[in-house]
């Protein structure tokens, strides 16, 4: 009797297959490694890369279905299947694929090889995919926590380095703190709208339906708290304090993963919350996004200038990139509505994929130059790189120029996209600030280049451990450079693909 009345929602298994593949890959990796004799070299990384590729290919197949049948919701409105969600899922899968290849040699160099970090990559990616496809605030929160908890462990995973654990605990405490704010925001929105589902929130908080706006304070506080939580995850000022410490402390491949997949997932979630759940409140949150974007642009680039450690420089540079992406979000907030679309949204999505590849390539070079124990990530570690490893220095130069947004590189296309989206909605102040902060940030990248190409060798340089670049790392770096240059010179195909 009871069983007959309790009916679960219909599940479209094929539509959620990327999530299932990531989950299955992670579990299989952990269980199989525990039960079988030691795996040969490279096999963990290649298995992870294969799983990520499979999930990415399945997402691409979904893309065709969405093209034909349009966007739709899955599993009782819990998830949504549309182009932005798939775009971010593919970005995250690419990030896992590339990060796994960097991690392989890193773990053996450090003497901490094992399947755990790879399984965590896959689980974090799963969280990110759920987050960016969420159609319900609670589902979004679950995805955020799956991603975050995996990232806390990954940041602290280098057991031999005290810095890694210090970064891990800082990330954990501040991350838990911000998650609690985010959750409180969800609770207040739930109180105001009567549901956590995006569609129902949109209707429940619609001013045309409810002339009774007594819930205003509750909802506004909820929106503010949600923004705090999301701004923390994307490392926007003034919620960026964890970024430099965690980026420096975490193992370098993990840093690459945080900066690429973590940021993509968080921005995907931010767009979804602001555009699909709260489009009627854009007048209220758009000034807040504007302020955060301005602060992030300025503080990120200025603080990067005063650093001496390259990982910290790149951490602040990633803060400044978050500012650029927020420009796109701000432009999108001028024209909110579900399903989300418009120049703002597509410029954000394009920025995310270009930046993901760019930042992983950059951190791949830092992984090689950092040498054993990530000990040489100061500027001095890069001294004389052009003499010993000219190709590596050249690749790094291209990647840094792209981060600075120099024309003919992917970074230019990304920055051009968000700034033109801002100009389209007449946000001139923010566009000008963005260009000025790009100039300041360029100085940071130049400092690293000067250190590689020009700075004279000092006594003791010859006795340093030499920089080793194994084959998989070369593959990663050269594909990142190739992608950056191809997108920079022939951006048409990427622009036409972007939803």
């Amino acid at each position: 009797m009871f069983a007959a009345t309790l009916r679960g929602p219909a599940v479209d298994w094929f539509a959620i297959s990327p999530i299932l593949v990531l989950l299955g890959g992670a579990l299989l990796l952990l269980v199989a490694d525990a039960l079988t004799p030691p795996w040969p070299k490279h096999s963990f990384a290649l298995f992870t890369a294969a799983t990520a590729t499979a999930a990415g290919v399945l997402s691409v197949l979904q893309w065709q279905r969405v093209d034909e049948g349009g966007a739709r919701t899955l599993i009782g409105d819990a998830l949504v299947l549309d182009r932005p969600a798939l775009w971010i899922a593919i970005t995250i899968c690419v990030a896992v694929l590339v990060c796994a290849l960097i991690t392989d040699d890193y773990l053996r160099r450090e003497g901490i090889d094992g399947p755990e970090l790879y399984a965590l990559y896959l689980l974090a990616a799963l969280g990110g995919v759920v987050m960016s496809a969420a159609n319900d605030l609670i589902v979004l929160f679950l995805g955020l926590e799956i991603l975050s908890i995996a990232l806390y462990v990954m940041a602290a995973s280098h057991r031999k380095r005290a810095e890694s654990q210090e970064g891990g605990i800082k990330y954990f405490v501040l991350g838990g703190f911000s998650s609690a704010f985010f959750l409180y925001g969800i609770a207040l929105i739930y109180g105001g709208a009567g549901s956590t589902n995006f569609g129902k929130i949109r209707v429940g908080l619609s001013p045309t339906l409810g002339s009774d706006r007594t819930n205003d304070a509750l909802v506004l506080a909820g929106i503010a708290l949600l923004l705090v939580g999301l701004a923390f995850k994307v490392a926007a000022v003034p919620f960026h304090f964890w970024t430099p410490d965690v980026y420096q402390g975490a193992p370098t491949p993990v840093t690459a993963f945080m900066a690429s997949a973590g940021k993509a997932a968080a921005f995907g979630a931010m767009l979804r919350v602001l555009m699909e759940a709260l489009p009627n409140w854009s007048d209220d949150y758009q000034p807040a996004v504007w302020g955060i974007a301005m602060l992030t642009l300025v503080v990120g680039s200025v603080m990067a200038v005063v650093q001496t450690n390259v990982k910290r420089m790149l951490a602040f540079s990633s803060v400044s990139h978050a500012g650029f992406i927020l420009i796109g979000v701000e432009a999108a907030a001028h024209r909110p509505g579900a399903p989300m679309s418009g120049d703002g949204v597509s410029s954000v999505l394009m920025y995310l994929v270009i930046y993901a590849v760019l930042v992983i390539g950059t951190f791949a070079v830092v992984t090689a130059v950092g040498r054993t124990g990530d000990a040489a990530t100061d500027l001095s570690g890069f001294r004389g790189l052009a003499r010993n490893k000219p190709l590596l220095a050249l690749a790094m130069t291209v990647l840094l120029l792209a981060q600075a947004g120099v024309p003919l590189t992917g970074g230019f296309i990304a920055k051009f996209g968000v700034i033109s989206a801002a100009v389209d909605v007449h946000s001139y102040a923010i566009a000008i600030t963005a260009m000025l902060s790009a100039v300041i940030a360029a100085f940071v990248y130049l400092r690293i280049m000067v250190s590689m190409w020009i700075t004279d060798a000092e006594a003791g340089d010859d006795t340093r451990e030499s920089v080793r670049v194994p084959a998989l790392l070369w593959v990663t770096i050269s594909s990142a450079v190739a992608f950056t240059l191809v997108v920079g010179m022939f951006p048409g195909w990427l622009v036409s693909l972007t939803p």
Partner: protein
Amino acid sequence: MIAQLSLVAVTVTATWYLLLAAMLFAIGVVGVMVRRNPLILFMCIELMLNAVNLTFVALARKIGDVGGQSTVFFVMVVAAAEVVVGLGIIVAILRRKPNATTDDLAGLKG
């Protein structure tokens, strides 16, 4: 006199619980900001999460919707997972540096 006082009917509404939850949340926030012991920091975060749970239940009761109450179970599972990971990291740090406080964790600077 006492008999009269006890006759004053006090109805405990959902708002009381919302206020209590807000206070608990604030205690958690202040705790994270002022305490130095990693375990206490951690307890304060748990307090914040449970304050939100109380908010969910009170609001669910207020608007007559069961969704908020079921949400609490998800939050509890997440909190439990956070406990596992957080304690793991804290134990790893305390093993390296017994009695470490947040002041000792200042190796990363720039």
